[in-house]
């Protein structure tokens, strides 16, 4: 078992390094930030351009730049942002709480809405509930995210003024103070909901199919034969087993939500890592883009490694290969 864990961790590390190379290489192919940052109309000449390149470290051979980057990345040092002039690590750490709050809340919302809907759909299979529930969930998944977000902002924020239209409130960092919590929740509700609706359908579908399988299985029928009440059958036996794949899905979803919040962050002016990344890509800010992408890649790969290890515990067959 421990061999398996070690092997899996090792593979994860190799993957990360491969990822770093791909990220670094492709970003450096996207253009010349030194040229980009020099204004058009000022009296600048080649000397200055070269000086700019040197300051950014862009005049060194590619492989040197990469190795430099890699050894920094292993220590989570990604260099200084070209446009912020502060270490990328600090920037990302500064914005990370916002993104994590958003992703966690989105996931909680998705489960809180998706699981009951999924159970309901399974129990009422092919009924009108099933169909409406599925339609609602799929609608959330099918409409363009930014469009839904803007409409919600207009209705809930501008017309009804029930919820704020943008921003995080006066919150800073990871832990809000007690009196800030209601404000924080107000600001979280809309953006997290927009994130959640893309996932609710999947959660619902997963719960539904898992429930259907369980409900059809022998041990549930046995429980019914034994005469246990419906409630007990559903909740104690069926639902709990059905939730295992759903929860696994949750781990991957979280990583995905963490990464995929760019659109939501733009529309809601949510100061998270996604916005940072967009800026980095648009402005050819190499260190920032590399840092942010590696960070998200890291999250995803760690999550999949952990899941694989957990599966290793649960399903011994996986370990042998």
């Amino acid at each position: 078992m421990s061999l398996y864990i070690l092997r899996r961790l090792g593979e994860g590390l190799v993957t990360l390094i491969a990822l770093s190379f791909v990220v670094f290489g492709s970003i450096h192919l996207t253009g010349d930030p030194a040229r980009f940052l020099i204004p058009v109309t000022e009296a600048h000449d080649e000397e200055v351009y070269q000086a700019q390149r040197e300051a950014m470290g862009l005049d060194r051979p590619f492989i040197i730049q990469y190795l430099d980057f890699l050894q920094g990345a292993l220590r989570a040092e990604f260099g200084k942002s070209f446009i912020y002039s502060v270490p990328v690590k600090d920037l990302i750490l500064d914005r990370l709480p916002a993104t994590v709050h958003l992703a966690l809340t989105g996931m909680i919302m998705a489960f809180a809405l998706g699981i009951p809907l999924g159970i309901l759909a399974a129990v009422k299979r092919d009924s009108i509930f099933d169909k409406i529930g599925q339609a609602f969930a799929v609608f959330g998944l099918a409409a363009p995210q930014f469009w839904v977000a803007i409409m919600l902002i207009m209705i809930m924020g501008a017309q009804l003024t029930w919820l704020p239209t943008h921003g995080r409130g006066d919150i800073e960092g990871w832990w809000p103070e007690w009196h800030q919590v209601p404000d924080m929740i107000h600001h979280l509700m809309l953006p997290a909901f927009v994130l959640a609706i893309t996932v609710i359908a999947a959660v619902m579908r997963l719960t539904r199919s898992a429930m259907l399988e369980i409900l059809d299985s022998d041990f549930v029928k046995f429980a019914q034969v034994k005469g246990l009440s419906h409630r007990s059958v559903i909740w104690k036996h069926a639902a709990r087993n059905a939730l295992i794949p759903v929860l696994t899905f949750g781990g991957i979803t979280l990583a995905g939500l963490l990464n995929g919040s760019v659109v939501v962050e733009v529309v809601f002016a949510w100061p998270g890592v996604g916005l940072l990344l967009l800026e980095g890509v648009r402005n050819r800010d190499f260190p920032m883009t590399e840092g942010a992408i590696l960070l998200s890649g890291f999250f995803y790969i760690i999550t999949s490694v952990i899941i694989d290890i957990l599966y290793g515990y649960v399903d011994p067959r996986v370990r042998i290969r």
Partner: protein
Amino acid sequence: MAVTDTNVLQMTSTASWRQRIKEARLPWVPLAIIILVLILGIFSELIAPFDPEASNLKARVIPPFTNGEHILGTDILGKDIFSRLVFGARTLLQVTVPAMAIAVLVGTAIGLVAGYSGRWLDAILMRITDATLGFPSILVAMLIVTLIGTGVWGVVFAVTATTWARFARMIRGEVLGTKERDFVLLAKILGVSPTTIMLRHLFPNVINTLMVMISLTIGQVILLEASLSFLGLGMKPGEPAWGIMVAEGRAQLLTVWWLALLPGIMITIVVMACNFFGDWLRDYLDPKLRRSR
């Protein structure tokens, strides 16, 4: 549920295809929508009354259902919205077909090879696949577009780059499940070459899952184009594509509402149709559920 006699008869005999279709409970509405999109996309020139890129400053922002010529109104440059929508279906096909084709080809090839070979080749390929899956789709898309540029091809490659890995992973999983089965082992003993085994024995078994995955991915492709266009990294403003149309009109929902609403509805309906169809297809092809019909 036990397999009744009549069921067996129906499945094995040449029962009329009419009965088969009724048994299958085809999702008529989603299917109709998909076919409609295909028709719009293939016959755009015949269906659309105007050139979707023909601007007309004298006929700007006409509301829908008010004008005989422009049934769905015009946009800020005076382009006919109905025509833009129709050609938008074509752009959809132009993006989706090549992108999915390449993604499926690459993904399947890698998945088959990885799953069948096992050991270190599998490990390497899967780590590369993992590395790609580690990029969230919008970030990959952003990178690709900054490399290639915006427009149709940028979006095509962005889609390809974000979707091939999931096919690879899925195919590999299927192959792993299938390759220990008797008929494969038999083929190996008989000395059939690995390529033949992969193509003739393993691949047909994964087609089902592949088809389901494709139909479920198409929806994401459409939405990815919309998101990229919103971020300024997708189609170019003025091009006939639903995503960029919604992006163009998104800030004017109170005044020029039809600019964003109409293409938005199109996107939602088509993505829903694809998803429902994919769901049905999965249910239909699932051997476990098939038994219980």
